[in-house]
C-alpha cells in the first residue's frame, strides 16, 4: 500500500508530507508520474536524485522510468537554479525581433552562457521556446515577471536590478 502520512520521512523534512498528500490524491497510480513530479518540483524547487528515488518507490515504478521521464521533459530541473532566473524567449517572433542580440550581449556582459548560472550563483540564464506573449517581442521572464519589448542595453540593466533585489519567497 501507499505510504501513509503517519510515517515521517527519515530526514524529518516536512515537505515530504505535502508530496505524500499529492501522491495519495492520485491514488499512487503510475500514470500520475508527471503530475507528481510537477508537485515535487513545485515544493522542492528541483528534482534531486533522492527525490526521484522517493517518487519511484511511492508510485511503484522502476527508477529508470522515473529518471527517463524527468530527463525527457524540459520543464523538470535536475539541478538547482541560481537565486534569480532570467528566461529569454527564443520563440520565432522574439527571434525575428532580435532576441539573439540580447542573448549575446548578456553572455558577453556576464561571462556566462545561457543554460548556466553566474559564478556568484545570483542569476540563472535560461532560454524558453515561447512564452506566448509574441505581441511584446522580444520578451524575457525575470523571476516570473514578464518584460516585453527589450533591447540589449535594457536587458543588461534589468539583470543588474534583478541581482540587487531579494527574491520573493514562493509560498
Amino acid at each position, binding site marked *: 500500500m501507499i505510504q501513509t502520512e503517519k510515517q515521517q520521512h527519515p530526514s524529518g523534512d516536512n515537505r515530504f508530507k505535502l508530496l505524500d498528500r499529492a501522491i495519495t490524491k492520485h491514488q499512487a497510480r503510475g500514470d500520475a508520474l508527471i503530475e507528481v513530479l510537477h508537485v515535487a518540483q513545485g515544493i522542492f524547487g528541483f528534482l534531486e536524485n533522492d527525490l526521484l528515488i522517493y517518487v519511484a518507490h511511492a508510485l511503484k515504478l522502476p527508477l529508470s522510468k522515473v529518471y527517463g521521464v524527468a530527463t525527457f521533459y524540459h520543464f523538470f530541473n535536475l539541478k538547482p537554479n541560481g537565486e534569480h532566473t532570467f528566461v529569454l524567449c527564443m520563440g520565432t517572433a522574439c*527571434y525575428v525581433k532580435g532576441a539573439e542580440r540580447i542573448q549575446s550581449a548578456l553572455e558577453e556582459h556576464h561571462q556566462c552562457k545561457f543554460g548556466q548560472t553566474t559564478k556568484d550563483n545570483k542569476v540563472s540564464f535560461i532560454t524558453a521556446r*515561447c512564452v506566448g506573449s*509574441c*505581441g511584446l517581442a522580444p520578451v524575457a521572464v525575470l523571476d516570473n515577471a514578464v518584460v516585453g519589448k527589450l533591447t540589449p542595453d535594457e536587458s543588461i540593466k534589468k539583470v543588474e536590478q534583478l541581482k540587487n533585489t531579494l527574491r520573493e519567497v514562493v509560498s
Partner: protein
Amino acid sequence: MTLEDLQELSEKEQLRQAEKKHRILYCSAAGCASCGSDKIGAVLKAKIKEHGLEKECEVVGTGCLGLCGEGPLVKLQSDQTLYQNVDVQAAEQIIESHIVKNLPVTAKKVDTTQPFFISQTKIVLENCGEINSESIDEYIGVRGYEALAKVVNEMQPAEVIEEIRKSGLRGRGGAGYSTGLKWGIVSKAHGEQKYVVCNADEGDPGAFMDRSVLEGDPHRVLEGMAIAGYAVGATQGYVYCRAEYPLAIERLKLAIKLAEKMGMLGNRILESQFNFRIDIRIGAGAFVCGEETALLQSIEGKRGNPKPRPPYPSEKGLWGMPTLINNVETFANIAPIIRNGSEWFAGIGTEKSKGTKVFALAGNIRNTGLIEVPMGIPLRKIIFDIGGGTPEGTEFKAAQTGGPSGGCIPKDHLDLPVDYESLSKVGSIMGSGGMIVMDSTSKMVDVAKFFMQFCMDESCGKCIPCRVGTRHIYGLLDKISKKKATQDDMVLLQELCTMVKETSLCGLGQSAPNPVLSTLRFFRNEYEELLQPVEIYQGEPGVVADFEK
C-alpha cells in the same frame, strides 16, 4: 437543469448586463497581464468606487481584446470605445472623463474603423474580450451551453456527427483532417471505454491562439468536448495543456469546477442520461507532445515518444481504447455549428476549407495580435490591411506559417488565398495558426537554421532519421551561414532534407525539413551568396565526384 432553465438563466444574465450603464472591460489575457493590466483593473475599480458608480458600472477582466502589441487594452462595451497603452493615469482619466463627463479620452483611443477590426470574422473568438472568462453566468448569457443542452436532449449521436460532417469543419491543429469523419471513426470503433482529448499543447513558437481561447473563453472548449463525448460515446475527457500556460490552466480548472456545479459536466448532464467528466493533464515542455501518439503517451505518464500509425488513436489510443483527439480551436467551433446549423458554417470560407481561422500575427509587423479571418482570404489582406504592413523603412520579405513544420511564403505569392490546399501547394502548411512576418532585415539562412535547431533540440530521439538527420542538417546550415560551405554541401543538404522528410516516424521529423526546403525554393540566392567556390577544394576531388550523380 433543463433547456428552459438555461434559457431563463441566459435572459436573466442579459438583463443584468443591460441594466448597467457601462461595462468597462480590461484585457486580462497573458499579453496585457504582462504589461500590468491587473493593476489597471484595480485602478478602474477603485475609481468607480470613488465616484460611487458601482451600481451603474461594472469593471470586468476579459480574454484577449486582439491588439496585443499595444496593451494594456481597455474597452467600453456600451459604445465600443477601445483604449490602448492604458497606464494608471489614463485609467483614471477614462473614468473621470469618459464615464463621468461622457468625454472620450482621445489621446489613447484606438480607431476601431481600421481594417484590423472590420476585416475580421469572429466565430471562435466571438466571446473573447466580451465576457468575463471566470464567470459561467456570462457565458450562459451569450447562449453558452445551449448547444450542449440541445444535443443531449434532442439529438442522436449519429445526427450530431452528421451535422459536424456537413459543416465541412476540418482539424485546426494543422493537418486539416475532416472533423466529422474523425468523429465517425471513433464512434464506430469498439471499446468498453472511449476518451476525448483536447490538444492544448501549443508548442509552436510564435503561436498563442489556443492560449487566448483557453484564457478568454474556456467554457466554449469544454462545451465542444462534451458534445464530442456525446457524439462518439465517451464519458471521460482530458485537456492536455502546456505547463508554460499557468493562467490558462487556472481558468480551465475554475471553468470545470463551475460547470460541474451547474450540471453541465459530470453525471446526468442537463438532466439527460449522458455522463461526461473532464480532467486536465499538464505537459512538461516537450514540443513532440503536440504529436497525437506522443501526447497520449504523456497523458499516461510516460516519455513523450511517438508510436507508428496505424493503429490510429481513433481505434487504439489512450490505454488502448478508442480516443478522439482534436485541437482547442476545433472544439471551440463545435458549439456555434450546432447552435447555428451546418449550412451557416459551410457558407463561410472556400469550397474545401470552411469557416474561419485564428492567426497569431507577430514579427516585423505594425499590428501584432490575435486575428480571426474567413478561410480563403488573400495573404496580402492579412498582412497589409489587417496587420498594417511592415514598420516604416522596411520591406516585406516573407511570411512564415506553421512554425518549425511550415514554410515561408515570399512576396510573389502574396495573393495566395489562405486555405489548407493553397498553402501546401507553395510548400508551407496552415499549421496551428502562427504567422510571423519577416522584413528585409531577416536572413533566410539564419531563419532556416533557427528552426532546424529547434527541431534538433526537440527531436525525441526514437527514430534515427530525425535524431541524426536534423543534427546534420543543422550542421550543414551552420557551415553555410559561416561561409565555409560549397555547392556540394547544398546537394547534400537537399538530399538529407528529402531523406528525413520521407523516413521519419512522426510528424515532427517528417515536417522538420520544411523550413529549409521552402527557403531553398524561394530564397536560394541567399544560400548561394554564402557559398565558397568549389575550386578551393581542388585538392580533394573525391568530395565533388561523390555527390554529382
